[in-house]
């Protein structure tokens, strides 16, 4: 796929999401409450899609979008009243557009079912807009009558457009003819000419170099931004000037006319041709500032992060050497470098950060559809959409969230009758929240449903031999059993969830992201699932310790405090593996013993008190080396079974230290 086509797909995706979100918004309120801004949003999305497709000459998409846009336009202009049925249809339009775009981009044809669907939707759209016979696929007509009708004379503006492709334009493989054709769809192109004076004769011609200039008169009712937008995909490859020659009949030649020359930042000084100059009209130049954003291949950012990681390591080495040589100046320089590297790192990481909002909004559709299928009414409330998270994390969290939400809708929220019987509001409520909390991001899914029936879960778990019948479990431990593989509690296996898979996958996915998941519930009042995710996956602040001859990194955020293991403690332990820490029991784990590391005799031992979830434990190590910016590297497939080591990192001297996965380690020893 070419880069342009990739961009196209991303753009289309964005527009489809906007449409879908808006439609979901609309379906959540009563049809009368739908305001014009929502309709406008739909219209703009559809319109942009049509435009983009036009630029690539995807005629089928254009004509499909056009019909939908038409209807929206009529609704927008209050010529037609929006109905529930129409909303449903637009959801279908949304889904089908996706199909149509996929198929078109793959250069394939709609299959029979899809074609039936296509023509069916077109027929319905046309029926709504009162057009009668729809243009079924295979039509090639560019303009619809209705459009001609709507082209109210006094809204039309005239432009003179000059397009000068850059020398290398042809190599970009972009089709400017498709853009001109598209302009022809949304307006009228006249006097299209090729300025050929710069073209050399065939003996001197470099066939791949562009010598042309195109110019045309253009009339349309679109704002000038729309015309500029049509050139979005080629803007780097052409110099473009668009001159507004306002030809409103009643205002022609009057002083109040303020036509504008729009020059996208890439354009050369507008070079109006004689055609335009011939018009005795005042012109004023203005610049349209466009919000400039960059789409970068994420691998490029990853590469940068890797490089910075290497620099952090190299700098750690410098610091170490400076420290050994007692070279104060070098230490200071390295210090400066450290803080600058930190800034660069944060900056680059920031590029990867995206707001969770857009991915959250997609979930509304899922909640809505699931609820509808189950005949439930649910109010879905999202908050914290602007919380930022690493893009790769956002992508990977989407599936688990879908699972969790489906579960809440299906198992959490009770049927309407039941809710009424229990004196609850008949409409259930699910909250999806995101917020930052101490170096991580928390995502919560909370419902006001039935809560998790402890006894049923426990019985099921015992039946499936997940826990022994004699085990004494806390409430929390029982709730967390829902994440165990092979546990289904839905009394009837529904179409939606409750097949005994799902929540274990959720847990696994989240653990892959180095996150944790926890569930809490009150019977009759609802449940809450809390997911805690690290801000980023590549670098953590670690604490370097040593046990025997092996060095370990403990993530700093897990560490509560460090204390010395005194001989007094030792003797008080009396072979127990815990100590009394300020009045409460602190279970201990000797890392050296546990991992069978060659023992070296040390004068003193230290206890690192780690805190993971609700568990507190003390890890006995020998040496404390201090904080260390830890670049996490995977240990690789050979070590994949060791779950309590999450990776390795390279120390300043080139040695490797192992990163302890504290939650996994604790879950193993408890």
């Amino acid at each position, binding site marked *: 796929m070419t880069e342009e086509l990739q961009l196209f797909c991303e753009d289309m995706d964005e527009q489809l999401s906007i449409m879908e979100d808006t439609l979901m918004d609309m379906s959540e309120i009563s049809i009368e409450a739908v305001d014009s801004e929502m309709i406008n949003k739909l219209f703009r999305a559809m319109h942009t899609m049509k435009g983009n497709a036009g630029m690539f000459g995807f005629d089928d998409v254009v004509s499909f979008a056009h019909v939908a846009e038409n209807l929206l336009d009529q609704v927008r202009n209050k010529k037609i009243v929006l109905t529930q049925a129409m909303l449903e249809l637009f959801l279908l339009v949304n889904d089908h557009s996706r199909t149509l775009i996929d198929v078109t981009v793959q250069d394939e044809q709609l299959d029979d079912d899809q074609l039936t669907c296509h023509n069916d939707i077109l027929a319905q759209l046309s029926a709504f807009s009162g057009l009668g016979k729809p243009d079924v696929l295979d039509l090639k007509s560019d303009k619809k009558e209705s459009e001609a009708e709507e082209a109210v004379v006094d809204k039309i503006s005239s432009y003179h457009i000059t397009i000068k492709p850059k020398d290398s334009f042809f190599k970009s493989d972009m089709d400017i003819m498709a853009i001109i054709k598209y302009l022809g769809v949304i307006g009228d192109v006249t006097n299209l000419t090729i300025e050929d004076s710069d073209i050399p004769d065939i003996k001197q011609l470099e066939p791949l170099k562009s010598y042309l200039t195109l110019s045309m008169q253009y009339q349309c009712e679109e704002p000038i931004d729309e015309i500029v937008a049509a050139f979005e995909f080629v803007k780097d490859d052409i110099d473009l000037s668009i001159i507004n020659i306002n030809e409103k009949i009643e205002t022609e030649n009057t002083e109040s006319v303020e036509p504008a020359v729009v020059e996208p930042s890439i354009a050369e000084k507008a070079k109006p041709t004689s055609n335009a100059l011939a018009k005795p009209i005042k012109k004023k130049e203005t610049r349209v500032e466009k919000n400039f954003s960059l789409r970068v291949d994420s691998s490029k950012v990853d590469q940068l992060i890797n490089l910075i990681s*290497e620099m952090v*390591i190299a700098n750690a080495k410098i610091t170490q050497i400076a420290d050994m040589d007692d070279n104060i100046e070098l230490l200071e320089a390295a210090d400066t470098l450290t803080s600058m590297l930190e800034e660069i790192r944060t900056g680059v990481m920031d590029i990867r950060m995206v707001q969770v909002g857009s991915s959250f909004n997609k979930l509304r559709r899922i909640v809505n559809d699931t609820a509808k299928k189950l005949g439930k009414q649910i109010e879905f409330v999202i908050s914290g959409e602007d919380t930022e998270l690493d893009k790769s994390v956002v992508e990977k969290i989407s599936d688990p969230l879908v699972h969790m939400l489906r579960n809440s809708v299906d198992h959490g929220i009770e049927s309407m009758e039941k809710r009424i019987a229990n004196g609850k509001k008949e409409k259930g409520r699910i909250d999806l929240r995101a917020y930052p909390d101490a170096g991580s991001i928390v995502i919560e899914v909370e419902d006001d449903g039935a809560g998790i029936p402890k006894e049923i879960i426990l019985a099921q778990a015992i039946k499936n031999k997940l826990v022994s019948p004699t085990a004494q479990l806390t409430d929390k431990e029982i709730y967390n059993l829902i994440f165990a593989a092979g546990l289904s509690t839905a009394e009837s296996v529904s179409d939606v969830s409750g097949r005994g898979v799902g929540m274990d996958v959720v847990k696994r996915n989240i653990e892959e992201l180095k996150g944790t998941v926890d569930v809490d519930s009150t019977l009759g009042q609802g449940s809450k699932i809390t997911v805690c995710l690290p801000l980023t996956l590549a670098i953590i602040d670690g604490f370097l310790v040593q046990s025997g*001859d*092996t*060095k370990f990194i403990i993530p700093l955020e897990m560490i509560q405090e460090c204390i010395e293991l005194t001989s007094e403690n030792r003797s008080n332990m009396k072979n127990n*593996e815990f100590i009394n820490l300020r009045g409460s029991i602190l279970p201990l*784990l000797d890392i050296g*013993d*546990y*991992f*069978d*590391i060659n023992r070296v005799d040390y004068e003193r031992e230290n206890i690192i008190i780690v805190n993971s979830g609700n568990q507190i434990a003390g890890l006995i190590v020998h040496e404390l080396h201090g904080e260390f910016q830890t670049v996490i*590297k*995977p*240990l*690789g*497939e*050979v*070590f*994949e*079974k*060791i779950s309590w*080591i999450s*990776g*390795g990192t*390279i120390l300043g001297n*080139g*040695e*490797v*230290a*192992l990163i302890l996965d504290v939650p996994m380690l604790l879950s*193993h*020893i408890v």
Partner: protein
Amino acid sequence: MSKQNNESSNEKNQYFLFVANKDIYAITALEVIEIVEYQNITKVPMMSDFVSGVTNIRGNLIAVIDLLQRFGIKQTQIYDTTSLVILRKRHFNKELQIAVIIDQVYEVDDISAENIESTPDFGTRIDKYFIKNMAKYNDEYIAVLDIDTVLDIKELSILAKEKSSKDKG
């Protein structure tokens, strides 16, 4: 076309020969990425004896395998000549890098196809399982290692023993 063929068959005939515990072994040269001096290896707890640990090769963490332990002979001693050979190993559709410890580099040489023979059913010093075939080199038979089995990820990744039971007493 024919020239290309020749070249690639030449490469296929090339072997990397090394010494481990006074025996000479061969690995097809195509499987060798590079050879580096022995360096610090970080032991990873709870792995089998033949997994020596991980080491840092230009910023990447690479698993190191003790060949002699893998063959069940003994733990490799470290000498001045001890080296790490970084090998490529296909694992599903990924190419992994894994290092093995050898006593000494011996030679890189061509061994023509007619000097390659199948492994006898018994009589080889190491298990036939690890041997791809036998190569006749300077009138001596040396074992060409089957990297796919020597570095079988499934076997390498087995944990030495489940230890979680020990610490509650």
